[in-house]
C-alpha cells in the first residue's frame, strides 16, 4: 500500500512544485496549499499507515490491545496541518496586500514595481519619512 501512497504523494508534490514555480502569485499560493497537504501525506506514509486501529488505549486497559496506528507521525501531522493553515492564511493576505498596493499578481511585475523609486512621503510600507 505504501507504494501506491508514495506515488500519490509524488503526484501531489509534482503539482505543487509546478504551481509554486509560476509567475502568478495566486497559483503560487495554491501550490503552497497543495505542498502542505502532500508533505503531510508523505510524513503519514513514512509512518507505515495501517487500517482500522486508531492509536487509542481502550477503557479498562493500560496499553493498546494489539497493533494500533503509529501515533507519533499523527501528532506531528496534526500540528503541521494547523500550522499549514496559518501559513496559507498569511500568504493569502500578503498576496492581497501586494495586489492592493502594486496592482499586479505577476512576480516579475511585482519586482519591477517594487524597484521603482517612490515618492519620499510613502516608501513602500507606508512609513512616512521624516
Amino acid at each position: 500500500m505504501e507504494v501506491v501512497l508514495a506515488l500519490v504523494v509524488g503526484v501531489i508534490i509534482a503539482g505543487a512544485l509546478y504551481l509554486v514555480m509560476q509567475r502568478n502569485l495566486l497559483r503560487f499560493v495554491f501550490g503552497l496549499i497543495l505542498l502542505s497537504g502532500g508533505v503531510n501525506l508523505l510524513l503519514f506514509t513514512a509512518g507505515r499507515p495501517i487500517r482500522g486501529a486508531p492509536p487509542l488505549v481502550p477503557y479498562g486497559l493500560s496499553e493498546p490491545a494489539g497493533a494500533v496506528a503509529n501515533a507519533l507521525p499523527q501528532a506531528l501531522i496534526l500540528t503541521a496541518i494547523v500550522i499549514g493553515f496559518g501559513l496559507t492564511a498569511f500568504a493569502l493576505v500578503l498576496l492581497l496586500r501586494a495586489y492592493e498596493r502594486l496592482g499586479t499578481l505577476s512576480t516579475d511585475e511585482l519586482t519591477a514595481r517594487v524597484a521603482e523609486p517612490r515618492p519620499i512621503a510613502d516608501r513602500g510600507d507606508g512609513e512616512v519619512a521624516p
Partner: protein
Amino acid sequence: MNSVILRSATNLLIAVLLLFSVFLMLRGHDLPGGGFIGGLLAASAVALYAIANGHRAAVRLLRVPPQALIAWGLALGVGAGFFALLQGDPYLTGQWLIFAFAGVEWKLSSPLVFDVGVYLVVVGVVLTMVFALEER
C-alpha cells in the same frame, strides 16, 4: 450573505457547535478531539455565524476581541507548565488531580489547562484573520 435559511440555521446551530467544540476539546485526552480540533470547530462555527449575520454580529457574539483569546490562550499554555515547578518536576510535566464528586470521577490536570490554552489560541488566531478580512 443574505440568506434567511442560512441565518436561521446558523443561529440555531451556533450554540450546538460551540458546545460540541468544548466537548471535543474536553474529551480529547481519551478520545479523538482536543484543543486543536475543538478550537478549529469553534472558529468555524463563529466564522459561519459571521458569514450569515455579518461580522459585526459575530464580534458582538464573541464579546472579546479575538486577539485577547490568543493572549489568554498563550498565557494558559505557558502557565500550565508552572504547576509542575510547584511540585518540583521539570517544566510542563503533567500534574493530575483525580477525585470523585457527585458520583462522577473528575480528572483535573495541567495538560487539560494546556489544551484549553491551545483551544483559545486556535480560536483567536482563526477569528483574528477572518474578522480582519471581513472588516474591509
